[in-house]
C-alpha cells in the first residue's frame, strides 16, 4: 500500500513524484508506455513562458508567474539543459501592435517583471533575422527554453533516487475505491494499491477520471506539428520568437532549443485522440510558411526531423487541479496544456498542498536530496576534461553517436541510472544519440547492442519505443 499513486509519468507526474519524496511518503508512478515522457512531455515547444499570456485570475496565470523561477531553479538542480534566452512576441500590423500593448498590460496584471514594448527596429536590433515587416514586439526577458523530456526524465530519476517507485507498461484499465484507498489494475493484470490517487494522465486524464468514477470533464486533443532543424540553424535567432495570437491560433514560434537546435511550430488542429501524433503535409507546410513570416531566412533544407505533440486541452481553457468532489482521496491534475511545462514545479507544489488539505500527513524526509548527478555530457567538456575523464572511465573514450558526440559511457549510464532507458528512443532522449543530423543512421546498431547488453535482452527484442516496435525480424 503506497501513500500516493500517480497515474502518468509525464513532466507533471514526474515533478509531483519528486515533490512528494521531500516528505516521508511512499510514492508510485504508473506509466502506460515503455518510458517516461512519452506523451505531450516529449513533443512540445520546450518554452519557459514569461507569464503575460494567461487570463488574469486563472490558475494558469497564478502558477505561470510563480512557476518561472521555480522551473529554472529545478532545472539547475537536476542538471537539465535550460537557457533564459528571453522571448519576443512580434506584431505585423497596427492592429497587432495593439495586441502587443494589451499583452503588456495583461503581463503587468499577472505580475511579470521586465516586460517592455519595442519598435520593429528595436526588435530587429536584438534579432537581426526578424522580418522587416515586424512592426513592434513585446520583450519578455524572463522567458527561456528547457529540454522538456530531459526535465521529465531527471524529475522521475530524482524521485526514484529518493525512494519513489516507477512501473512502466502499466496501462490502467480499472480503478477501484476501497475502504482504505485505491487499487489500480493494469491491462496485464498487475495491481497497485495506494491511499491517495493523483490523476496526471495527460491526454488520457479524462479516461482515468472516468475510470475512477469522476468523469466530469472531456479533453479536446489538439495537435501541434513541429519541424526541428540542424544545429547549423540553431543561431538563427537567440530568443524565442512568437507571433501575436491570431485567428489561426497562438501562432507559430521560431526558437533556439536548450540543446542548440532551431525549432519551428506548432500548428493547432483538432484530432481524434492523444495518440494522433502523425505529421501531415499540410501541417508541415503551414509551419514552414508561418515561421518564415517571422524569420524569413530560416533554411528549411536543414530540417532533421518533424514531429507532432497533442495538447490536453479543455473547453474552459484553464488547468483542472482540484480534489474530486465525489471520490475521496482522488486529486485531478489535468488539462495541463500550455504553459504547463513552465508551471510544472509550481503545479507540483500546489498539488502537494491540496493533498495535505485532503488529509495526507506529510512529514519532512530528512534524507531527501533534490540534486541529480550531472550526466557527463561529452559535448560540453573541454579536451582536458575529456582526457581526465576517459582515463578514469575508458568507455567515455568511444564515441558512438558522431553527430552529437555521445560516448559509449554516456549510453551505458543512461541504461543504468534512474529511470533506466529500455529502448532506442529512451537512449536518444537521455543522451541525444540518434538525435543529430543522421538521425541514428550510423549509431543505431551500436545503441541496440548496448541496450541488449545492459538490459539483458536479445538483439531481436530491442524496441524503438516498447511494445510491438521491435527493430529486427529475426536472425538471418
Amino acid at each position: 500500500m503506497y501513500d500516493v499513486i500517480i497515474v502518468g509519468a509525464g513532466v507533471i507526474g514526474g515533478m509531483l513524484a519528486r515533490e512528494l519524496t521531500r516528505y516521508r511518503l511512499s510514492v508510485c508512478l504508473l506509466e502506460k508506455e515503455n518510458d517516461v515522457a512519452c506523451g505531450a512531455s516529449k513533443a512540445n515547444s520546450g518554452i519557459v513562458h514569461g507569464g503575460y499570456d494567461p487570463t488574469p485570475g486563472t490558475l494558469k496565470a497564478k502558477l505561470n508567474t510563480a512557476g518561472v523561477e521555480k522551473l529554472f531553479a529545478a532545472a539547475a538542480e537536476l542538471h537539465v539543459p535550460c537557457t533564459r534566452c528571453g522571448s519576443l512576441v512580434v506584431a505585423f500590423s497596427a492592429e497587432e501592435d495593439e495586441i502587443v500593448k494589451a499583452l503588456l498590460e495583461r503581463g503587468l496584471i499577472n505580475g511579470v517583471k521586465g516586460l517592455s514594448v519595442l519598435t520593429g527596429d528595436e526588435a530587429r536590433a536584438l534579432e537581426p533575422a526578424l522580418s522587416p515587416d515586424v512592426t513592434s514586439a513585446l520583450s519578455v526577458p524572463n522567458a527561456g527554453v528547457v529540454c522538456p523530456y530531459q526535465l521529465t526524465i531527471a524529475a522521475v530519476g530524482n524521485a526514484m533516487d529518493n525512494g519513489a517507485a516507477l512501473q512502466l507498461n502499466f496501462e490502467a484499465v480499472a480503478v477501484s475505491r476501497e475502504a482504505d484507498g485505491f487499487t489500480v489494475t493494469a491491462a496485464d493484470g498487475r495491481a497497485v494499491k495506494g491511499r491517495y490517487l493523483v490523476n496526471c494522465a495527460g491526454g488520457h486524464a479524462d479516461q482515468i477520471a472516468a475510470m475512477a468514477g469522476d468523469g466530469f470533464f472531456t479533453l479536446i486533443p489538439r495537435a501541434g506539428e513541429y519541424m526541428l532543424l540542424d544545429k547549423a540553424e540553431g543561431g538563427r535567432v537567440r530568443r524565442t520568437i512568437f507571433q501575436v495570437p491570431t485567428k489561426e491560433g497562438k501562432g507559430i514560434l521560431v526558437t533556439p532549443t536548450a540543446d542548440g537546435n532551431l525549432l519551428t511550430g506548432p500548428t493547432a488542429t483538432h484530432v481524434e485522440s492523444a495518440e494522433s501524433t502523425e505529421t501531415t503535409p499540410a501541417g508541415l507546410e503551414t509551419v514552414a510558411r508561418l515561421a518564415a513570416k517571422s524569420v524569413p531566412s530560416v533554411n528549411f533544407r536543414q530540417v532533421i526531423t518533424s514531429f507532432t505533440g497533442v495538447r490536453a486541452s479543455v473547453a474552459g481553457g484553464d488547468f483542472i487541479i482540484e480534489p474530486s468532489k465525489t471520490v475521496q482521496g482522488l486529486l485531478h491534475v489535468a488539462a495541463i496544456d500550455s504553459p504547463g511545462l513552465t508551471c510544472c514545479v509550481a503545479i507540483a507544489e500546489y498539488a502537494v498542498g491540496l493533498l495535505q488539505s485532503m488529509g495526507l500527513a506529510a512529514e519532512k524526509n530528512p534524507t531527501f536530496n533534490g540534486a541529480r548527478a550531472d550526466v557527463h555530457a561529452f559535448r560540453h567538456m573541454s579536451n582536458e576534461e575529456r582526457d581526465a575523464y576517459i582515463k578514469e572511465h575508458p568507455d567515455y573514450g568511444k564515441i558512438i553517436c558522431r553527430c552529437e558526440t555521445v560516448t559509449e559511457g554516456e549510453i551505458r549510464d543512461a541504461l543504468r541510472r534512474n529511470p533506466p532507458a529500455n529502448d532506442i528512443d529512451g537512449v536518444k532522449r537521455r543522451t541525444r544519440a540518434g538525435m543529430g543530423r543522421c538521425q541514428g543512421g550510423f549509431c543505431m546498431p551500436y545503441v541496440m547492442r548496448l541496450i541488449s547488453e545492459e538490459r539483458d535482452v536479445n538483439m531481436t527484442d530491442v524496441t524503438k519505443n516498447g511494445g510491438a516496435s521491435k527493430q529486427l525480424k529475426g536472425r538471418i
Partner: protein
Amino acid sequence: MKYHDIVIIGGGPAGMAAAVAAYDAGVTDVAILDREETLGGILKQCIHNGFGLHKLGRELTGPEYADVYRAEVEKRGIAVYTDTMVTAVSPERVVTAQNRTGVLTMQAGAVVLAMGCRERSRGALNISGTRPAGVYSAGTAQKLMNCEGYRVGERVVILGSGDIGLIMARRLSLEGAKVEAVCEIMPYSGGLIRNIVQCLEDFGIPLYLSHTVAEIHGRRRVEGVTIAEVDDKRRVIEATKRYIPCDTLLLSCGLIPENELTRAAGIPMDPVTGGALVDEHRETAVPGIFACGNVLQVHDLVDYVSDEAEIAGVGAASFVKNQKAKRPVIATKAGNGVRYVLPQQVHADGSEDISLFLRVTKPFGKVRYTVSAGERVLATANRLKAAPGEMEKITVGRDKWQGVAGPVTVSLEEL
C-alpha cells in the same frame, strides 16, 4: 604533442589508398585514424561483388577490396589508430582525437580528409506520417544484415533508386523478404544500370519512376506506406496516391559528404558537391589539408575513390617534402548541361596533365563535352550517353594548359 608527417582522417577506401600512395611517394611517417575497430569503412558491409573491376582488374566483394588495401597498409608499417574518433582539425593541422586511452592531439605535416559520407535521413526528407520502428536508411539496414546477421523486415518498400537501395532490394530478396516496390522521385534512376538489371529486373521488383512515399503508417511498427506519383515539380499528385502494406521502409535517397570537421576548420566548401573546394592535387583552400573520396564528392564506384585518394596522397607527400610557395590558380566552371566540375581550381602552368571530373544535370543521349577558356578550346570528348549517376572524366594534357589565364568552363552539347 605527437607528430606525423601525414595524418589521414578515416580508414575507408579513400584513407587507405591515400596512405599507401603517400608512403610510396616517399613520406613514410603516415598515420590513419579511424573510428571503427578495423579499417575498411563502409566496404566492410558491402558483401556484394562488383568492386575492383577498373582498379584491380578483378571482381571482388567489398570486404575483399578492403583487404587488398589493408594488406598494403600493413606491409608498409603505416601507423593505424583504430577505435579513434577525430573531434577537431585546426587550420594549423593540429588533429584532436579520442579513444579509450584518452584525448590525443597530433601535429601533422599534412592532413588528408577521408571521412566519407552519410545517408539522407527520413527527417531530412520530411516524409509525413507516424514515426514507427522499421524505417531504415539503406546503409543501416545493410549493416544490420551483413555485419550483425539480422533480418530487418519481411515486406519492404524502398524509396530512392540509388545504388545502395538497389543492392539492398536484391539482398533483402535473397534473405526471403518481399520487396514490394522501389520508388524514385526523379523520372530516372540515380543508380548504375547494371544494378537496375541485376538487383531489380532479375528479381521482378517494380521500379516506379516519378514516385515518392507520401506518408508512413503504423504506430509501433511500420504497417504500410502511401506512395504517389509526383509532377515535374516533385509535388505529390493526390489522385495517384495508393497504399502499400509493408513492415519496413528503406530510404536510399542520396549521400551527403560528412564534412562537419571540414566546416569547423573553416575550409571553404562547394555547395554543389557538398565537399571542400580543391585543386588538382585535392588540396583544399587551407594549405596542407587535402580531401578525397566521398567526403569530397560522392563517387559511383570505389575504384574511382581509390584513384582520387592516390592523387590526394601524392599531393600530401609533395606538400610535406616541398612546402612550395602558393602558385596562382584559375577556376573551373560548370557550363551548359554540367552540374559541377572537380577540381574547382587548377594550377594552369602546364607542369602536368590535369583530369577534370564532372557530373551532368540530367540524362542525355550522345553528347560532346568541350573544355574551353574563353574562345580557346582545350579539349573535347564525345560520349554515347551521359547520366547524372555516372561521373565523367576528361583529361587535358599539360601542353594545352600553357597560357590559360581565365576560368575554364566544361559544357556539353547533345549531338
